[in-house]
């Protein structure tokens, strides 16, 4: 019972990592294109990353 749980939590963390990585990368692209919109992009990036993070933590608590 223990192993599937741990593997599942690992998968969720991989998913959350990919998600946050993509958000960060896209934000970098966007900032490079429009440096004047840095503040707005960062805010949106942090909110989206925080939402994904919530899911990641929810999975960790299931273990």
């Amino acid at each position: 019972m223990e192993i599937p749980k741990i593997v599942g939590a690992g998968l969720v963390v991989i998913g959350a990592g990919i998600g946050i990585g993509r958000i960060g990368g896209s934000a970098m692209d966007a900032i490079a294109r429009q440096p004047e919109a840095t503040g707005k992009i960062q805010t949106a990036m942090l909110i989206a990353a925080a939402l994904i993070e919530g899911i990641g933590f929810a999975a960790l608590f299931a273990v």
Partner: protein
Amino acid sequence: MVISNKPLQFIIAILIACLPILGFANNPSENTTSQTETTAVAHEASAESSDESSEIKEQIKEVIGHHVLDGHEFSLLEYEGEHIGFPLPIILWDNGVQFFSSSKFEHGEAVAESNGNYYVIHHEKIYKTDAAGTLTEAHGHPINFQPIDLSITKGVLTIMVVALLMFLLFAGLAKSYAKNGGISSGVGRLFEPIVIYIRDEIAIPNIGEKHYKKYMSYLLTIFFFVWFLNIFGLTPLGINVTGNIAITFGLAVITFVITTFTANKNYWGHIFWMPGVPTPMKIILAPIELLGVFIKPFALMIRLYANIFAGHVVLMSLIGLIFIFKSWLGSSLSFMLSFAISIIEILVALLQAYIFTMLSALYFGSAVEEHHHEEAH
């Protein structure tokens, strides 16, 4: 790539920084033996010491578990049976108020007596018991009666200290404006830009020019409260307040109550009867939107709690690695890792306070939003 304009100083600095690697605290006799001998000895020793290492792992788990829990005494250090710290008052509601010092528990070892009632402390929970201190266990948990615990615990004390600190700091800041003719002085120069940032970058864009003022006091309070508590959690005092789900639950409930009671009719209209979608869709959306009302503060609670809790556990585990590796290489690696994580944690402390404030402002904004996009539907 130019690393430094002064390569000699740079090299010296690097060498000095690497000095700790040369130092070792191992038994010298072990290091003088040849490589093959040590491995052979290590193999023999590993079979014998497997019991010992699992015991160390258990101890580390216990220390981490003890650290992340709220405590009934303020213990700074525990070394070979010696406790360094101070007791805190215990307040219980059990046939009237029972008030005594937590030193009566003798760090969880003894039965405390108050007005003829006996209590024991088990994993930071207080149970009523008899003079002998017997605990009836079922499924690994004691089933003794638990009186209502209103004690001034470590977390409560820290909240009081932070509240006092914030009151003095910001009352002084407000006063300094009156004294200096509208110019902040002293510590106010540090906090004024943060206050302005919260107003201009968090409150106004999310809530709107018209309504933001009545939410500013709450947003500022929550930001500085969470930030200070997070920073306090990183000090060696060993406090974990925002990593306690009861505290974040309280904060999330305040946000929920403010959102619910200041919401206008458009907010409720968007929840129960979403405008601009076909009628069957409105019926499907209503329960989902209603659920969302509760999920939003729930996510706030979990996010702050989990971030700080996980940060503390990771940091403590990395420090615990020193006692598992027991070698200069492992220890220096563990030190460097925990140092790096500590720096990240300082960032996380600020980031989580910001996210909490930001999302609260977002929810308030959705609650007071005017119905201006009628044509869009």
